[in-house]
């Protein structure tokens, strides 16, 4: 392999694919990045056998070929190089990285050792989704799944296509978040799959700020996300396994009937919960009292070691008086994903799930179980 390439493009490519590398003493190839040059194209790729990322870009190729280089080392080097163009040349088992004034030689692994990242079979169903709105929606649920080994199916984000949109849901069995986006490009596909949490995270950070569309190919065992930027002649492919199993019927968890409903300013309640949280100590519980007579919410926390705090926040209240203990981290996490100014909180009693949702068009909801009083 002998090529010339722009340093900036290479740097960007490495920053993205490096996310998929893994440390594995028995398979050192997982800690490497593969570089493969074919006609005018350089493909940079990495994988940890759960997720694989491929990045292709333009390069001036004098001699085709490929090599696998240690990821950390290579990325450190490319990051500090100061020149604009880089020449790369594979000689025997070494990669020579050269620019006008600098010369580097890196020991490499044979490309033969590098895992083959699965590519398209051709029979997958494909849809095109707006990158930004998909990633923004994913970001609202991606923190929720728990790495449960007894219930592997909830360790990922549930993605379901239906007629008018896409539903994304995640739960850790203590709380549940669901974000819907309207989407009409599914062309009758009513697919549903469970995306590993890691993949969801990587998708958000890789594609989150990129304009355009992602093409999604779904097969029963894997999903491939592809983004192409025509102007720069680059493309990014993320291949991921899917989690096997059946996602629980989470709709049953979302409460429908409430004893009490409260509408309150989001900013205000977030500030009050944060203040109370100062005194809630290790157990992370705060107490909410909905007062239907005084028309408002009392938010309080008490710790034996530090002291106590309580505050009253007026709000519009319908229904009965409710007292409930909730984990403030869970509460804030739900609230922080709501964009609007007003939220509606529905209570079903001191040991029933609480529903948070924005008032207005935003399609988001968050259900959280209380802490035993």
């Amino acid at each position, binding site marked *: 392999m002998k090529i010339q390439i722009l340093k900036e493009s290479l740097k960007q490519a490495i920053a993205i694919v490096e996310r998929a590398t893994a440390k594995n003493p*028995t*398979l050192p190839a997982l800690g490497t990045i593969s570089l493969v040059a074919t006609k005018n194209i350089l493909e940079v790729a990495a*994988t940890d*056998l759960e997720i*694989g990322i491929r990045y292709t870009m333009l390069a001036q190729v004098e001699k085709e070929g490929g090599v696998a280089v240690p990821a950390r080392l290579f990325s450190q080097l490319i990051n500090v190089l100061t020149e604009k163009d880089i020449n790369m040349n594979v000689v025997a088992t070494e990669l020579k990285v050269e620019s006008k004034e600098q010369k580097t030689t890196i020991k490499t692994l044979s490309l*033969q050792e590098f*895992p*083959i*990242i*699965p590519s398209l079979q051709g029979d997958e169903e494909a849809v095109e989704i707006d990158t930004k709105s998909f990633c923004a929606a994913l970001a609202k649920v991606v923190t929720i799944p*728990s*790495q*449960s*080994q*007894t*219930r*592997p199916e*909830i360790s990922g984000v549930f993605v379901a296509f239906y007629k008018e949109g896409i539903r994304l849901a995640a*739960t*850790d*069995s*203590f709380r*549940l978040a669901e974000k819907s986006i309207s989407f009409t490009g599914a062309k009758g596909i009513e697919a549903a799959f469970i995306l590993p949490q890691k993949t969801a995270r990587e998708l958000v950070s890789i594609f989150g700020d990129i304009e355009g569309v992602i093409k999604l190919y779904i097969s*029963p*065992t*894997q999903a491939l996300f592809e983004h192409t930027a025509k102007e720069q002649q680059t493309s990014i492919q993320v*291949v991921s*396994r899917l989690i*096997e*199993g059946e996602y*629980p*019927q*989470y709709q*049953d*968890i979302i409460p429908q009937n409430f004893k009490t409903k409260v509408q309150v300013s989001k900013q205000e309640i977030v500030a009050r919960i944060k203040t109370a949280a100062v005194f809630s100590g*290790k*157990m*992370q*519980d705060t107490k909410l009292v909905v007062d239907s007579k005084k028309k408002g919410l009392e938010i309080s926390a008490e710790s*034996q070691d530090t002291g106590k705090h309580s505050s009253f926040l007026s709000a519009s209240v319908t229904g009965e008086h409710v007292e409930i*203990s909730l*984990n403030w*981290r869970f509460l804030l996490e739900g609230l922080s994903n709501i964009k609007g100014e007003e939220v509606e909180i529905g209570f079903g009693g001191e*040991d029933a*799930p609480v529903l948070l949702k924005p008032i207005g068009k935003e399609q988001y909801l968050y*259900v959280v*179980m*209380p*802490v*035993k009083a």
Partner: protein
Amino acid sequence: MTKDELWQATLAQLQFKISPANFATWLKNTFILSKKEGTLFVSVPNNFSKEWLEHKYNKIIFHAIKSLDNEVREIRYTVERSRPKPKDAPVRTLTAPQEDQMEFPEFQADRSTNLNPRYDFDNFIVGGFNELAHAASLAVVKSPGSIYNPLFIYGGVGLGKTHLLQAVGNQIIKESPHKKLKYISSELFTSGVVSAIRNKNVDALRAMYRELDVLIVEDVQFLAGKEKTQEELFHTFNTLYQAGKQIIFSSDRPPKAIPALEERLRSRFEGGMIADISMPDYETRMAILRTKMLEKEIALNNEVLDYIASHIQRNVRELEGALNRLSAFSRLNANRMPALVEAKALLRTVIQNPNRIANPKKILQAVAEFYDLKEKDLSALSRKQEVVRPRQIAMYLLREDLKGSYPFIGKKFGGKDHTTAIYACAKIAKELQASEILVDEIALIRQRIYSG
């Protein structure tokens, strides 16, 4: 050669041609799915393995197989969608941020079977007090529907009936996932019957129960007096029993002692195997405490354990409650384990609960409840057999447990003569030597009084 043997032989050859690291990475969890007209289908766990085997190892795998089975002309690799094997999974990592955080109830139990996966045989502690019930349950797991059918398990509150029944259910499902199993409390069963009658779809309900392979009904003593429900259960029972399906019941008392239960249903309860769970002895209580301690990752010293085990005798759930208290203490005090003095103070409310001290009122209440009578019936003038006997038992308990004088006892029952009380106590004491059932009944009543 079976396909498993063929694959094993192939792997045996391959191990010399592939480095151990690669062998472990790419050939783990692979097996032959099927062979059709010279094409061998090999299942691989993921797409990465598939690509690797197809592109790098296909030749050597093919050669190895060809040398063993000449018919094979092609190998295809497919990724199977199957659940990962539980033994590959590391230990449970899902932990609540704090102990009191509640979970969505939907996640605690499997919706179709109502089983909670947390109960299994591994964490069920066997001692003399539950040996029989445990052995019978294991036998049922081994061959559902054939050995002990129905299995009837009875015992007091908090001694592990539910744990055992759920474990049986979970184990059966684990061993044969296709089996249809339903775990239901008799209360749910009743409300199912009631709403089916109201909505006029009793047939659908019957059909649902009658296609089960295993039916587990908890707390059948609550069926007392519910005739229509008993009838439904009776018919369901007959259908399942005749089809050789396993049925398991639990109750807080033996079938004989369940009042207002139709004779035909009672005789069916008694038709299989009846096993009781009594109270754990000291050694078993210690064993339970030690196991629970490991689960909760706390380390109490022997003194404290001994104190708990010797003071909480009647209820396993309370043992766990006591441990919970102490573990909360250690969490709040930078993981320091409580000393005996502190433990005593912390457990005072659990151990010296005023409820655990008997008084005449509680005894009367428990006896009346147990025999499904009103409290005032006991002191009424009636001489009906169904009242007389409970009355005598109540008198006996007042004498034995409270050391009440005979005139005092007589007065408690509507001013009866002290000789009546003497006669009653002597009669019950004598019967106790002859009748095992009465021993059981009285033990169960006592448990109600003291765990109340």
